[in-house]
């Protein structure tokens, strides 16, 4: 009985934690691959939160968040694919898989 109540809470907390970890890495890490991974981790955090929300309902499991997560994963995969291709192109063009420290202002 207690397990039923607690476990969604854990998912919620883990979700938030993952989101924050991902955010931290996205800001701190300079390598583009790590940044892209960080975005994915943030996304996983949100998905986990949504799953926790789904399990919290009274009358069984709420299907809507699951639909959201599925769609979200599809979106995340496409975004990751674009990001990875772009990273390779940046590497090919500049020789570095990272962004220059300051943007070209002029």
């Amino acid at each position, binding site marked *: 009985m207690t397990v039923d109540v607690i476990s969604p809470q854990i998912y919620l907390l883990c979700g938030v934690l993952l989101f924050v970890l991902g955010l931290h890495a996205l800001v701190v890490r300079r390598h583009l691959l790590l940044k892209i991974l960080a975005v994915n981790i943030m996304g996983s955090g949100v998905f986990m939160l949504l799953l926790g929300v789904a399990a919290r309902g009274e009358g069984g499991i709420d299907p809507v968040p699951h639909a959201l997560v599925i769609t979200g994963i599809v979106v995340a995969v496409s975004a990751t694919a674009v990001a990875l291709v772009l990273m390779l192109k940046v590497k090919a*063009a500049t020789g570095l898989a990272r962004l220059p420290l300051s943007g070209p202002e002029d």
Partner: protein
Amino acid sequence: MPWMDVMADMALAPWLVILPLAGALLAGLWPAAARWWGLLTGLLTLPMALLLALQVHAHGPMVLYLGGWVPPLGIALVADGLASLMLLMTAGVGLAISLYALGYLTGETGGRWFWILWLWLWAAMNALYLSGDVFNLYVTLELVVLASVALVALAGGAAPLVAAMRYLLVSLLGSMAYLMGVALLYGSYGVLDLQGLGAQVALSAAPMLAAALMTVGLMAKSALFPLHVWLPPAHGSAPAPVSAALSALVVKVSFYLMLRLWLTVFPALPLPGLDMLMGALAMGAVLWGGLMALRASRLKQVVAYSTVAQVGYLFLLFPFLRAFPDGWKAVVFFAVAHGVAKAAVFLAAGTLQRAAGHDRLADLGAVMRGRLKTSFALGIAGASLVGLPFTGGFIAKWLLVQTALEAGLWIWVLMVLGGGLLAGAYVFRLLGPAFQPGPADPGQPLPAVMEWVPLALALLTIGLGFAGTPVLSLLTRTLTGGGG
């Protein structure tokens, strides 16, 4: 009008998504004719958007459940005054961009990809404007981002690629923050559609956090100072039609989303200090963007920094909304006026750049003298950016000043007027080279459409100068949430 009643029975809204999407598909399947699909899409979408706006104006907001499925499982398309105005602006500017690209992209290898991505972007933007729930807004927002990032990268070369990467990362960060907000809202209220949320959202921690996350995420996407650094390189180094689409349309997408949220979902949240914070950032944007535009040495950089500055005005939304419920209309009119004018300026800049082979401001004099139509487009649209009379920009400035004065917010009056002076300084600086002594030289031969389209858009900004009343009247047909 009887024909309008007949049209009212037709569901126009889905076609505004289907048409560009089909265009993108056909452009992909039939690359040799990609440009003609693009043109056809533009030609068909504009009248559709116009009809939809007329219908909404006549009959009020329209909701359509796709396949008859009701939310939360089905998808609803909502066309109200605000959405149909944005669709109309996108269709007008979109048609201009398509026409311009016909001339700009002749014989380029990137041409095929441009058409697919651009029509895809158009479909995504239209879908976003018609979305009625927060999750669909997320999905369409991601589609917009992916298409626009790819368009920036299209130019190839190190600078555009780095700019595209930076843009993508900032956008993804913004999207994640937004998605987190969606999860929090669903977790709290169990609904996703804007109206449903608006009816329930009340003052508590979860929606406050959601509002903060979503707002900050969208701020980054709209390039509000100080989260603007990605914008000038991305908008400044992309091909001209792409720059125009990004600065005129894509920036407005995240603004629209923010407006929707605060108009429908969050009006019950007071968020103390948000209006002042946003106002202060807006002021920073206007000052910093204006100063950088004064310093930049390349034409397109100046225009891109001008976008940074003008985005600042969009965020006057917050102080205005707090002051009184109708305060947002001035900002929306500004967004439309800026969209048309900025597209004209970027397209004109592209023409001059092509003709001269570069866009160093100091050396553009001969080409500006040689291409009068384009220089005029630059001048008229520039006047709209400054807010000089007979342009949409003047009406927008008038409305902003009027709204700020009505609310007794002096500081924003000063900001709008001062920002106009800065804009005057950089716009007249743009025009300066044309008046230096020297010969007139049209430069490289160019298709005529590249001169006529910027001029047509510039004349449209003059048209907008007389469209204040109908636009405001259309905006009264907007769905708002919470108390109203």
